[in-house]
């Protein structure tokens, strides 16, 4: 994985020093609050409900054991002993003091990490497929491109004061695990006519209050043109994006207002100018970065211990059935460690858990860890022979929950418990659903299901792309939860549709249960998943299950 060179290391250190000076200048009055605000946001520092929140980037979701241990140390020393992994491959510390933040940033810089551009109206931390470089279905590891984009976007002089935030996601696999269509720019790797790799470029995706699927403006962009093309998009947006209304400032609205053809024409025109400015140095840099993403030295050893454990231990077998993903080497596996144990807050990890995972990555996983947008932690390269030992260690720490991709593997935003913008609680709803599913013991029967919960219309919990999406709103001071159905964040991207009137806080868990029971009734057989059944039958039978009395009334 990518190691900072002197340039990167000097950059983050200088940046911390500058931020330290900015904090001092704010306190002295040289910077007004209005001036300081975007500067702190550009360094990942938010003002939240209880105080400051520091959002740290985990570029393309990749980190090593040393970095994970440093996160654990930071959480213990300056926060409350845990961190919250987010849906954009960041980790958030919810309780820092402003005066400590420069020290926290310095601790991050020591291990080649930062909080740069995790907030603010700028290009945010670039996200990528969390299985990159390991997945069996991958065309190419997208992370060298993501790292190139990180360098290009970092402190880009033109793009620190855009009309609004700007998100880029990249995947190297035809299976989209990076929700690329929900980003301002989505890059999906495809092969060109000559078999060379390139990107399908989509623009203007986003969730939030106006959910839109990104629109493909370039079916095939040669990989070598990535930086000039992305710069052309952002540069065009910087000039055209609205600055009079923050709710209409994202590029998805620019696209709607100017029309995709006109916007694409401007982008292509700018691209033609910019292409001349990138004369190959960027590609040399890419080659250099790529060398650092060379696969680890995989080990050859017998699979017998793995097969034996599977045969002997049903708990281990259940875990391998749900929490493993095929690795590009058949004798290895990608292990997803669930942060969604019953009663846990989705995405939260304690310092002890972080340290354990760092140790296990060192022992069994070539010192590599990933954070997924689904708020779990991944060991991407584990030899199958090591899985029994790994499982035992996880189990001892309460990290062996076998629910990846299942109903209790819920994405939930922090909600009203932490967030100043939230209009309803989301974590208690996630916990309630997970607990109910646990009681029913139906999770494995139900199979693959994505439940996503947001505590306000900004949709940080990705509810629009949940098979079952839940949106918490405030109706005259009372929490009210709306259900959307049929959303999908993958290559078969779809925005979920609202099912009908919302539910009170104490009604939402039973409502979800009715949906799950309806699915079990409606599916053709065990192989047909929830989303497949939904697509076959449409929303009507699910809505009937959600609103039974109304249905009876209609029938009468």
């Amino acid at each position, binding site marked *: 994985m990518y190691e900072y060179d002197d*340039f990167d290391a000097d950059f983050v250190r*200088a940046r911390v020093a500058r931020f330290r000076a900015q904090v001092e200048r704010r306190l002295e009055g040289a910077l007004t609050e209005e001036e300081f605000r975007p500067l702190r946001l550009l360094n990942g520092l938010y003002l939240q409900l209880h105080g400051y929140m520091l959002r740290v980037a985990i570029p393309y979701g990749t980190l090593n054991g040393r970095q994970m241990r440093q996160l654990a140390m930071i959480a213990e020393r300056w926060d409350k002993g845990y961190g919250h992994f987010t849906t954009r491959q960041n980790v958030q510390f919810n309780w820092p003091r402003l005066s400590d933040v420069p020290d926290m940033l310095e601790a991050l810089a020591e291990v080649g990490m930062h909080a740069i551009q995790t907030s603010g109206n700028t290009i945010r931390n670039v996200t990528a497929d969390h299985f990159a470089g390991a997945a069996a279905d991958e065309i190419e590891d997208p992370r060298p491109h993501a790292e190139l984009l990180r360098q290009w976007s970092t*402190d880009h002089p033109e793009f*620190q004061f855009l009309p609004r935030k700007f998100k880029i996601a990249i995947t190297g696999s035809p299976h989209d695990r990076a929700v690329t269509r929900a980003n301002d720019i989505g890059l999906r790797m495809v092969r060109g006519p000559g078999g060379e790799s390139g990107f399908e470029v989509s623009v203007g995706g986003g969730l939030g209050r106006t959910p839109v699927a990104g629109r493909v403006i370039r079916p095939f962009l040669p990989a070598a043109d990535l930086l000039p093309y992305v710069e052309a998009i952002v540069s065009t947006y910087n000039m055209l994006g609205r600055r009079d209304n923050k709710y209409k400032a994202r590029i998805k609205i620019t696209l709607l207002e100017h029309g995709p053809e006109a916007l694409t024409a401007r982008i292509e025109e700018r691209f033609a100018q910019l292409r001349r400015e990138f004369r190959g140095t960027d590609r040399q840099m890419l080659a250099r970065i790529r060398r650092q993403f060379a696969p680890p030295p995989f080990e050859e050893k017998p699979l017998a211990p793995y097969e034996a454990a599977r045969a002997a231990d049903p708990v281990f077998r259940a875990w391998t059935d749900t929490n493993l993903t095929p690795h590009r080497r058949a004798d290895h596996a990608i292990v997803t460690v669930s942060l969604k144990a019953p009663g846990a807050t989705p995405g939260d990890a304690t310092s002890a858990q972080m340290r354990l995972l760092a140790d296990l990555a060192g022992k069994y996983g070539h010192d590599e860890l990933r954070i997924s947008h689904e708020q779990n932690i991944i060991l991407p390269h584990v030899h199958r022979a090591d899985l029994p030992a790994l499982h035992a260690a996880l189990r001892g720490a309460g990290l062996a929950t076998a629910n990846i991709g299942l109903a209790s593997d819920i994405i939930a935003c922090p909600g009203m418990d932490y967030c100043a913008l939230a209009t309803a609680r989301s974590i208690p709803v996630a916990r309630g659903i997970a607990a109910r599913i646990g009681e029913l013991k139906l999770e494995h029967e139900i199979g693959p299901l994505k439940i996503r919960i947001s505590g306000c219309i900004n949709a940080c919990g990705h509810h629009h792309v949940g098979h079952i999406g839940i949106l918490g709103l405030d109706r005259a001071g009372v929490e009210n939860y709306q259900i959307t159905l049929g959303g999908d964040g993958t290559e078969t991207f779809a925005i979920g549709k609202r099912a009908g009137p919302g539910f009170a806080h104490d009604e939402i868990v039973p409502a979800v249960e009715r949906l799950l029971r309806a699915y079990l009734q409606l599916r053709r057989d065990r192989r047909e998943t929830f989303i497949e059944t939904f697509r076959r039958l449409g929303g009507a039978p699910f809505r009937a299950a959600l609103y039974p009395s109304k249905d009876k009334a209609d029938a009468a």
Partner: protein
Amino acid sequence: MPLEAPLPPIRERVAELNRRYRHHSAAAVLEHALNDPLVGPVALVSSFGAESVVLLHLVSTIDRSLPVIFLDTEMLFPETLAYQRAVSERLGLGDVRVIRPDREALFARDPDALLYRSDPDACCALRKSEPLARALEGFDAWITGRKRFQGKARAALELFEDEGGRRIKINPLAHWSPRDVQDYIVNNRLPRHPLVGRGYPSIGCRVCTTPAGESEPPRAGRWRGSDKEECGIHFLGGRAVPGPAPKTVIVTDTGFASDDWTGPWLTPEALERAGRGAALDIGPETDLGQLAGHLEALAMIRVNFPAFSDGRGFTIARQLRRMGYRGRLRAGGHLIADQYAMARRSGFDEVEIAADLAERQPQEHWLARADWQQGDYQSRLREGF
């Protein structure tokens, strides 16, 4: 339009309006001013003088029903009265209000109509300032045609002025040059005041106006032989009310300096007749396409940032350099010290800042980023590493 809340104080609104519309064209300023929720009911005050037709025409293209106040001092040239009727009709102005001095006051204070000889200020007060004050009652703002080039007292004129906390004065043409005015009249085929052709570049009352020579300032013919410059309607408490003195500081890699540019700033509209070595002022809305072909001749371009959080100027700078502009490039407006490196990396040579910001963010805050060439990912990715 009903307002949801009482408007904030004039001073704050004027500052905000100047910030908001600083880089807008006259037409845009007018159009916005007539629709901006920060501005209440508006009237245009016109003398129907030598250049008045420009503003009257601009208004007629936006809202013909806007109240137009014309002050008939009863000392005007008959040509002005005829011109007023002709122009009003031609432009279809629907609400021209001819305001005359108060009868009783006139009998009491100037029965012989000779006050102008003994006390021109008192005459102006009686025949212009007082009637205007009455006519403007109930208006939140008024539009004037004053321009910076018209004289010392108007040299620092802003688009929006605070009239003593009572009312907003809107000066959409503040930045226009004499040439801009003439071009506008020609291009729109507007009727000229008949006295202009007879040597009157500025026209007031017949008793106090004489022709001005070509080498004289345009208002030289007004109150000739006295040091009076203004009639009084643009005075406040007996004192001329210029805009705030535009003192700025120029920041470069070597620190602070005062502005060495003393020449005029052209608007893009004036580009066609710009000579070599001219300086151009542009804002984020400027269409860079219209600058093509002129870049070689320009000595300086100032790109104005309406707010420090509006990053369009950075892309404009890059684009100007990309178009081949090699002259001096200045970032104007509201950048802060923390943006100095961004400005330099985008292609700016210098940043112009207001004196109060220079005080709050002294030279060392800016010099801290004189190292902007260090740690620049862009140059590493474009030029080598």
